[in-house]
């Protein structure tokens, strides 16, 4: 059963945008002279590329603006360059980038240590708030962890005994 508008007086603005023609920003596709013509619009000025910026091979070059932080470096950077030889439509492209991200994480730890910075894992993981708001959950995690380690140790012990 469909209800009628009169039932909705408790909702401020009920139905006010129901008619798209009353809402001037409704997304009706606007045709313009650049439709069906490819990349022919008046392009914004080009940001100069002062660092290495990779670009999708599904486009001819860089966009007019782009971010410059964290250009590709090291092993992860090499893998990212490799990834960009493949289109966005391939698994190779995205899997290579994901693997690069994990390598990059190790590189990040290396870089921290090199700069004499020992990452504060408690702050980075937000563990203080875990202790504050989720004591029971945290205790469960710690207990499960301890149980897993105990079982593993017992198994290893019994195995080494078998070896004797």
């Amino acid at each position, binding site marked *: *059963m*469909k*209800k009628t*508008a009169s039932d*909705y007086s408790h*909702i*401020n*603005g*009920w*139905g*006010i*945008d*129901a008619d798209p023609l009353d*809402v*001037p*920003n409704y*997304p009706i596709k*606007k045709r*313009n002279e650049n439709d069906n013509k490819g*990349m022919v*619009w008046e*392009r*914004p*000025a080009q*940001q100069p590329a002062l660092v290495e*910026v*990779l*670009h*999708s091979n599904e*486009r001819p*070059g*860089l*966009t*007019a*603006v*782009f*971010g410059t*932080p*964290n250009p590709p470096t090291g092993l992860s950077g090499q893998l990212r360059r490799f*990834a960009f030889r493949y289109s*966005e439509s391939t*698994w190779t492209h*995205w899997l290579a*980038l*994901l693997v690069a*991200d994990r390598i*990059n*994480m190790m*590189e*990040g730890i290396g870089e*921290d240590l090199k700069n004499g910075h020992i*990452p504060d894992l408690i*702050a*980075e*993981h*937000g563990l203080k*708030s*875990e202790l*504050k*708001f989720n004591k029971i959950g945290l205790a469960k995690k710690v207990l499960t962890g301890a149980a897993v380690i105990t079982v593993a140790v017992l198994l290893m012990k019994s195995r080494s005994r078998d070896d004797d």
Partner: protein
Amino acid sequence: MLAMNYRGPYRVRADRNKPMPEIEHSSDAIVRVTRSCICGSDLHLYHGLVPDTRIGTTFGHEFIGVVEEVGDAVQNLKVGDSVLVPFNIACGKCVFCQQGLYGNCHESNPQATAVGGIFGYSHTAGGFDGGQAEYVRVPYADFGPTLIPDDMDHDDAVLLTDVVPTGYQAAEMGGIKPGDTVVIFGAGPIGIMAAKSAWLFGAGRVIVIDHIEYRLEFVKQYAQCEAYNFRSLEDPVLFIKKTTDWIGADVCIDAVGCEAAGDALQTITGRKLMLQAGSATALHWAINSVKKGGIVSIVGVYGPTGNLIPIGNVVNKGITIRANQASVKRLLPRLIEHVQAGRLDPKGIITHRIPMEEVGDAYHIFSAKLDNCIKTVLIPPSARK
């Protein structure tokens, strides 16, 4: 300056020595951030699910602030202006921007053609640093940033950069007709705002599905809608069929995206093994709960590789799927009206205000849904005086 710094999955820190951003293009501005939110989208980055998220990246695409410096070509903004900055980076000139598709600009992201530039959202979205920092570089400053109306609360303004437009567009894309039954998957900030907006389009019934009890309680009050826990429903699709007189919902909205819970196969293949671009449980349910000829509107974010969804049912039921990144700039004029008229109350969803220095805890609280968290705002030191 102080900035959030990504170190790897589940590891973020407040970096006190991040170099200040600079004008890199004549249309850039530098904005001093006064408020910056953490979004459900940031969680996909935080959990390491978005390819090409480089170590050292500063996240943050929902921010407002004060213009600190402008490039030579900037005409519409001046130093000292208070602005809200849409999360999409859009040129306003390309063929897509010309159509109002500001989330799909072709001049803001060299790394991928499938998505426009987004602040602080990995190199897959353009490699820009984001606004969870004291200062941020804002490209196309003449186009995106919008002056915050004098009478607008800045807590409302910061939610107009993403949450409100995204929730509203989710409802808009649903093509809701007066009287329609609208089912929304997800009671996070986006789902909550979609529920609120569905009424503005004349929905007859608004039903929200989630499994986090405190969020269901919240949305029921805040959006004056029905809310159900899928853990206690057994089969949410069957429940929706029953409650719609065995027809299905007119419109289903996916406001969950790639980290959906509720289906072991999806969770294992999508989130643990990453054999698909995240878990598509909510989308699966949306497709199967909508009526024949109905509309599924997707704003939940998925990765670029692909997902397991019942596409055969989309064909057989004649479903229309509409989806996009929200086109924030297009929607702002209307949404500012709604906020000013009291039809939308964005700041009502903010539960946490956390100093930017404690960003590690802020992410953990939002990600683990601790302390009844719905929406978190990071406040930089200069805005706390």
